[in-house]
């Protein structure tokens, strides 16, 4: 009885996605029809996924199905448990918003691009995502995983006429293949131990593994999932890929696709491995801290709006990793309640980041849609022609900066609390790391705020820089609805955190064998509490209401004053300088200059000034200024590696130099060697 509706809903959603994929592809000649099919079936499927996710979260008893592939080794088994439900729910919310958004967004493709192919890939992406979340054996999981990667790579390279898109798609596909390879090896290791590919047989598998195997398996999974999630130093594909994809896809990529890495870590490390040694958690935690800080630092230096968002995804994944790392450590040290706290921090942040990052990408998409550029240095003043987009983007910016009372704050607060709790719950040497990690989180948060002040202000505020104002237009309604949906979600998840939190209980019960959420809500269900040794309480609901209540008299006061004493518009004072133009404005580069100087060790900024003059250098005709930061990981790690492999490969070509004598010599020598090997006594 309980399984039935879930099964039906799940099956229907799969049908909707795959049917939508085929239907879009078939209708590619009719752009308008393809667009409607693409968005319509995706929306239907997403709603079904959402219902399924909610059902799974609420009813808590996992539902399972299995379909044979013709080979006994490989079966398509699904398990729809609470964890799957949670991630499916996240997926559903985003997919709903993106589908609505796409109704108008895809209109610009009509006549220019093949919407049929887009719809095909888009549906497959949703399908593979839901498969990844519900797969119950390694085989199906890997299929879902790789299909997702390939389809996402296809979508990244959707504007394949553009070289950057192509390269990004390629990089994405290769990195995904590497992470898929790591997972494949990791699963092969687990399967060797358990004797079966079913996840169910992996339960508490860590206990059966030798320490060497456990280390290898952990590192493989960590690499695999970490790469997918975009942690530093495996992140380079992320800022390349997410910006060049169509914006609705970027939203899903950053919102949910990278979360597959998070899902995998939770599924394998917490659900399968059982208790792991605490160095595992420490590694995750430290990598998380590094990713968070470096991610936001790189984001700050970007003036490509979507790249900025992409780097910020790295930051947020780092924050999520902190939570997971802390959860693993707590579990290793036998503190299930604290593990629950940390895990809630991680999963809640996963949910939240999905919401606001997708929202921001959709916002960026609207801007791109309207202005045709991703370069913030050319934007400015968009708040006037695009008020709704600006407002939604602002909500996203506030949320992602972790400012109360929106949702980003809630999950960061949980992260802080779990980090603080770590101080009392772990050994002497590791305990110092926790508050330090907390302070790094503070640094991250503050830098993120700076980053999003920049992102919002340079894009939307002040005077337009190099845009023709009259061409810029507000996005069509469906795009606004899509964004509004997510903006609402950000507010609701923030202010209503205490009402959302009980949804996590089933998942926590599944992962930790304990219902923990009850411990984290007090004060008549209004206050979030970290009932830990170093706990604390916070209520975003009260903060939200408090801000509103305090705002009213202030507004009243100012309105009254303005009525009496006048409120007029005039030219900006600007210290008395007349004629303020957009050239006076602070640019994105200028805004981040101070931080570039402060963190110059990291950025290795480079600047180049060239002046062109006729007679004397004192009278330059033209000055060219160029500045940039060093892409450290590309320059120091990836490019040398790539060069090494390629040059080595080129050298290897000498083997096949065309000489038949050489070819015969290979065989001859092999023959002689093998004969000698064969005659050994």
């Amino acid at each position: 009885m309980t399984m039935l509706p879930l099964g039906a809903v799940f099956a229907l959603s799969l049908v909707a996605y795959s049917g939508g994929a085929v239907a879009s592809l078939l209708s590619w000649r009719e752009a308008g029809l393809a667009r409607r099919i693409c968005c319509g079936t995706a929306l239907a499927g997403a709603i079904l996924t959402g219902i399924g996710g909610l059902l799974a979260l609420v009813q808590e008893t996992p539902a399972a199905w299995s379909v044979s592939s013709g080979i006994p080794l490989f079966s398509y088994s699904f398990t729809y448990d609470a964890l799957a439900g949670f991630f499916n729910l996240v997926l559903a919310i985003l997919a709903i918003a993106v589908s609505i958004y796409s109704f108008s967004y895809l209109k610009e493709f009509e006549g220019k691009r093949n919407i049929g192919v887009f719809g095909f890939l888009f549906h497959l992406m949703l399908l593979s995502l839901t498969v990844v979340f519900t797969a119950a054996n390694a085989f199906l999981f890997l299929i879902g995983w790789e299909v997702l990667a390939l389809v996402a790579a296809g979508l990244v390279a959707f504007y394949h006429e553009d070289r950057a898109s192509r390269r990004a798609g390629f990089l994405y596909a290769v990195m995904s293949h590497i992470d898929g390879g790591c997972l494949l090896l990791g699963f092969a290791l687990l399967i060797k131990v358990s004797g079966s590919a079913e996840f169910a047989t992996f339960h508490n598998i860590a206990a059966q593994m030798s320490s060497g195997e456990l280390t290898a398996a952990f590192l493989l999974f960590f690499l695999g999932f970490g790469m997918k999630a975009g942690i530093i130093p495996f992140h380079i594909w992320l800022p390349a890929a997410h910006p060049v994809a169509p914006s609705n896809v970027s939203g899903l990529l950053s919102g949910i696709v990278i979360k597959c890495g998070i899902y995998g870590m939770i599924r394998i490390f917490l659900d399968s491995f059982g208790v792991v040694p605490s160095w595992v958690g420490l590694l995750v935690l430290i990598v998380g801290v590094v990713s968070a800080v470096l991610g936001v630092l790189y984001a700050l230096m970007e003036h490509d709006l979507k790249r900025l968002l992409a780097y910020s995804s790295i930051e947020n994944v780092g924050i999520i990793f902190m939570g997971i790392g802390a959860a693993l450590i707590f579990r290793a040290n036998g503190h299930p309640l604290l593990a629950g706290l940390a895990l809630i921090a991680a999963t809640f942040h996963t949910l939240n980041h999905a919401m606001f990052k997708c929202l921001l990408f959709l916002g960026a998409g609207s801007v791109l849609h309207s202005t045709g550029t991703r370069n913030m240095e050319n934007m400015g003043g968009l708040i006037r022609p695009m008020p709704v987009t600006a407002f939604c983007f602002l909500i996203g910016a506030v949320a992602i900066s972790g400012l109360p009372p929106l949702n980003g704050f809630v999950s960061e607060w949980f992260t802080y609390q779990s980090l603080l709790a770590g101080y009392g719950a772990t050994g002497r040497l590791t305990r110092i790391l926790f508050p330090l990690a907390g302070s790094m989180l503070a640094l991250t948060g503050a830098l993120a705020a700076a980053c999003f002040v920049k992102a919002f202000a340079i894009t939307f505020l002040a005077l337009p820089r190099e845009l023709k104002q009259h061409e810029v237009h507000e996005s069509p309604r469906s795009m606004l609805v899509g964004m509004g949906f997510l903006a609402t979600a950000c507010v609701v998840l923030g202010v209503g955190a205490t009402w959302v939190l009980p949804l996590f209980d089933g998942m926590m019960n599944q992962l930790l064998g304990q219902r923990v959420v009850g411990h984290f809500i007090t004060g008549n269900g209004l206050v979030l509490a970290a009932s830990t040794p170093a706990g604390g309480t916070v209520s975003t609901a009260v903060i939200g209401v408090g801000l509103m209540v305090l705002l009213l008299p202030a507004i009243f006061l100012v309105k009254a004053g303005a009525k009496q004493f006048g409120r007029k518009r005039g030219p900006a004072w600007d210290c008395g300088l007349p004629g303020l133009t957009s050239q006076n404005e602070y640019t994105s580069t200028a805004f981040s200059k101070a931080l570039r100087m402060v963190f110059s060790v990291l950025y290795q900024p480079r600047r180049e000034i060239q002046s062109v003059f006729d007679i004397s250098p004192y009278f330059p005709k033209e000055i060219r200024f160029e500045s940039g930061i060093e892409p450290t990981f590309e320059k120091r790690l990836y490019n040398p590696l790539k060069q090494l492999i390629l040059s080595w490969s080129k050298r290897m070509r000498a083997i096949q130099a065309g000489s038949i004598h050489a070819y015969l010599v290979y065989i001859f020598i092999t023959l002689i060697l093998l004969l000698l090997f064969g005659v050994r006594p």
Partner: protein
Amino acid sequence: MIQVIANSGLQLLVLLLVAPLFSGIIKTLKARLQTRRGPCVFQFYRDLLKLFRKGMVIPETASWIFSGAPYVYFTTAILVGLMIPMTTTYAPFSLFGGVLAVIYLLAFGRFFLALGGLDTGSSFGGLGSSREMTISAIAEPAMMLALFTVALGANSTNLSEMAGAAVSQSWRFLAPSQMLAFAAVFIVLIAETGRIPVDNPATHLELTMIHEAMILEYSGLYLALIEWGASIRQLVLMTLLVNTFFPYGLSSEQTLFAAGMGLCFYFAKVLLLAVFIVLIETTNAKLRLFRVPELLMVAFILGALALISTFLF
């Protein structure tokens, strides 16, 4: 219950009405120390009143963000003020937000003010916003680390609990971890309130401005809200400092008498801190902007040392 409401009302009133006084006191004291006569301690009230009666000029280039920012700045300051115990260990909003909420709400205000600064399109606004966000970004981890040290000692991030824990352990402030943490938070306070050697509130010189540059385009009521908010923020931070590190006079009871006694103690402590700030301000020169991070780094190291010393000693 009535006492609770009365206490909250009292705290709100102190925040709204007394905060400008301390701004004035610091200004006057500073002038005196520099052997100037300086303005009257109530000058700040007069300024505010005057601003309230002025009309506003909104730059043509600005959007609603420009107008919205002062409200946010002002309300967050008050909301934060209600989370910090002032006269007794009880703070009205303590349950609804601890240290973390305080820091993040302050950041919320700053976030909007920085947007407001950038909204006008003037280069000064951008300059101020950029610097403000930079400095706060580096100040925040130091502050957080130092406050964590205290929170870990108190087993809570809620300020009432922290203050209560401080009260219950007498002479705790002599512990090295507390001293170091105090030093760290104090440096951050200097930075956050825009005082010498980080910023000079008294100057409008392009090269040195931070906070002032950001609000350069504001006028009239908006400027009043911002100035008022700034003075409240300053008082809030000072309160945070004195009441978490020197909780003397804080009573854990909720009686009117206790509140009254607490208030006296509170004023005395804040006054003392103000004097201390003035001393620092007059004996130091303003730092170059790019030396400020070094100062804040010192604060961070102090915070880290504080943390380490909690389990060393």
